[in-house]
C-alpha cells in the first residue's frame, strides 16, 4: 500500500506540474497540429488526393496524433526529471523509502499521461477537420498507450544521462524529429525509391505510426503484428535499462 501511495504522489505531482503550465504543455500542440491540418490537410491535401486509398487529410491524422503523443511523453519526463536533478529535489525521493521501480513507473506514468492527454486533445482537433473514426479499437488504444510509455521511458533515460539543459534538447531535436518526420507521418513509404524504403524500415517510429494508422483507418505499410511486438519489445528493453540505471545511481548518485 505504501508503494501505491508513493506512486500516486509522483504521478499526481507530475500531472499537477504539466497542468499548472498548460499554456506551455497542452496549448502549443493544439496550435501546431491545427496548422498541420489546415496547411497539409485542407490546402495541400486537396491537390494530393488519396494516399493508400484514403483521403490525404484522413491519412495524416494518425501520424500527427501519434507525433503529439511521442513529443509530449518524451518532453514531459526529460524536462521534469532533469529539472528534478538540476534543482536537487530528486534527493527528496532518494532519501525516502521509494523503490526504483516506483520512481520509474511514477515518472513514466506522469509523462505518459501528458502524451495521452495531448494525443486526445489533438485527436479532437482532428475531428473538427475530418470524419476519421476508429477502425480497430484494440490496436489503436494499445499502440497509443505503448507509444506514450515508450517515449516517456526514452525521456527518462535521456534525463538520467543529461548533465546540462543542452543535453535534454539534443535527442529530441537531432534524433527524434528526423525519425518522426521520416516515419511515414505524411506519406506512405511505398512512394519512396526502393533504397530509401528499405532504410525507412529501420526507423522504429514508422512501425508505430503505421500500426496506429491501421487502428484508425485500417491501412498500413507494414504488418501490424510485427509493429506491436516491436513496440512492446522496445518498452521492455528500455524499462529494464532505466531500472538498471536507477539501481546503479547513474547520473543521480555519487
Amino acid at each position, binding site marked *: 500500500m505504501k508503494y501505491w501511495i508513493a506512486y500516486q*504522489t*509522483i504521478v499526481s505531482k507530475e500531472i499537477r506540474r504539466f497542468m499548472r503550465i498548460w499554456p506551455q504543455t497542452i496549448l502549443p500542440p493544439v496550435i501546431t497540429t491545427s496548422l498541420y491540418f489546415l496547411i497539409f490537410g485542407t490546402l495541400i491535401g486537396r491537390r494530393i488526393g488519396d494516399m493508400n486509398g484514403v483521403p490525404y487529410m484522413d491519412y495524416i491524422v494518425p501520424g500527427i496524433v501519434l507525433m503529439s503523443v511521442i513529443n509530449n511523453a518524451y518532453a514531459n519526463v526529460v524536462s521534469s526529471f532533469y529539472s528534478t536533478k538540476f*534543482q536537487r529535489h530528486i534527493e*527528496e525521493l532518494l*532519501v*525516502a*523509502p521509494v523503490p526504483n521501480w516506483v520512481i520509474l513507473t511514477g515518472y513514466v506514468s506522469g509523462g505518459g499521461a501528458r502524451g495521452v492527454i495531448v494525443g486526445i486533445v489533438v485527436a479532437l482537433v482532428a475531428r473538427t477537420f475530418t470524419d476519421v473514426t476508429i477502425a480497430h479499437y484494440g490496436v489503436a488504444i494499445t499502440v497509443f498507450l505503448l507509444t506514450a510509455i515508450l517515449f516517456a521511458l526514452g525521456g527518462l533515460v535521456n534525463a538520467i544521462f543529461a548533465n546540462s539543459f543542452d543535453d535534454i534538447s539534443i535527442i529530441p531535436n537531432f534524433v527524434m524529429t528526423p525519425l518522426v518526420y521520416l516515419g511515414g507521418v505524411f506519406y506512405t513509404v511505398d512512394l519512396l525509391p526502393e533504397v530509401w524504403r528499405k532504410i525507412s524500415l529501420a526507423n522504429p517510429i514508422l512501425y508505430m505510426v503505421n500500426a496506429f494508422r491501421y487502428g484508425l483507418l485500417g491501412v498500413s505499410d507494414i504488418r501490424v503484428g510485427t509493429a506491436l511486438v516491436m513496440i512492446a519489445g522496445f518498452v521492455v528493453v528500455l524499462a529494464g535499462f532505466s531500472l538498471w540505471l536507477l539501481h546503479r545511481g547513474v547520473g543521480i548518485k555519487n
Partner: protein
Amino acid sequence: MQALSIRGLKKTYRNGFEALKGIDLTVGAGDFFALLGPNGAGKSTAIGIITSLVNPTSGRVTVFGHDLIKAREAVKSCIGLVPQEINFNQFEKVKDIVVTQAGYYGIRRREATARAETALRQLHLWDRRNSVSRTLSGGMKRRLMIARALVHSPKLLILDEPTAGVDIEIRRSMWDFLRTINSAGTTIILTTHYLEEAESLCRNIAIIDHGRIVEHSEMSTLLTKLHTDSFVLDLKEPLQSLPKLADYTLEWIDVRTIAAEVPRGKGLNGLFRQLSEQGIEVISLRNKASRLEQLFMNLVETQQSAESR
C-alpha cells in the same frame, strides 16, 4: 540501542579522491550529536552515505539496528534529512512540498495534510503555507526543510548546517525547537560551522578531518582537554608595551586591545589585580573564541601537521 553505527566506512570517488578512509562512529538513541570538521573533511559524504544519496565504497552502516545495504528502506524510514543546500522545488507551494514528501513515505494524503499542518505550525510557517516556496526568506526556507524532514516522524534527524546564513534570532528559535524535539526522543545529528551552536546543543561529538575521525567523545570530556581560556580585553588607555604578568600570557591585538590566555584554575581575579597594579584599566572583556572552536582548531592543526609529516 544505537541510533547509528558506522564501521570501517570508506568512500573513494571516481576521480580517485578518498573522502572517507575507514571511519567508525556510534551515536546512541536519543543523543544530540555534533559531527564537525573543516570543509572537505568528509562530513557531507558520510551523511550522504547514511541517507542513501552516496554509494559507499566499503564498510557497514546500521541505523536503529537496520543494515543500510540489506534493509535500505527500513533505514530510510528512520531518517529525516535537512541538507546543507536548498533542495526543494522552488516553484511549488510550501504545503505541497511537505505533503508530497509525506506521500513518498507512504502516508495517505489526509494524514499527510494533517502532519504537514503540525510541522508547519511548529516551525511558524503555517501562515505561508500557500506561498510559492521561492518567495520565502532564507530562514523560512531552512525551516521549511526542517518541516519536510519531520513530516514522517523520523527517529533520527540529520541536520547538515541547518542555521547557515540564518540571523541570530531565528537561529536561537531553531535551537529551542531542536532541543524540544530531542527531549521528545528524536535523535539528532548536527553538522555546523557555528561551534558555539554545537557546544550549546550537543552532548556528544565527533570531529572528522581528511576522511578520518580525529575525536569522538562526550562534549564535556572534550572541553576539559582545554587547558586555557582566551579572552579579549578592551583597555581604557592605549598601551606603549605589553606588560609581563605572572601565570598569564598576553598578546597584542591593537594598542587598546589585548588577548589574555587564562590557565584553567587560575581565574580572572589575578589577571585583573596584576593589570591594576600596572595601572592598566580594563573597560570590557569578551571570549576570544568559543572553547570548542579553540579545541577544534587544535585538533585539526594537529591532524594537518601529522598528515604533512
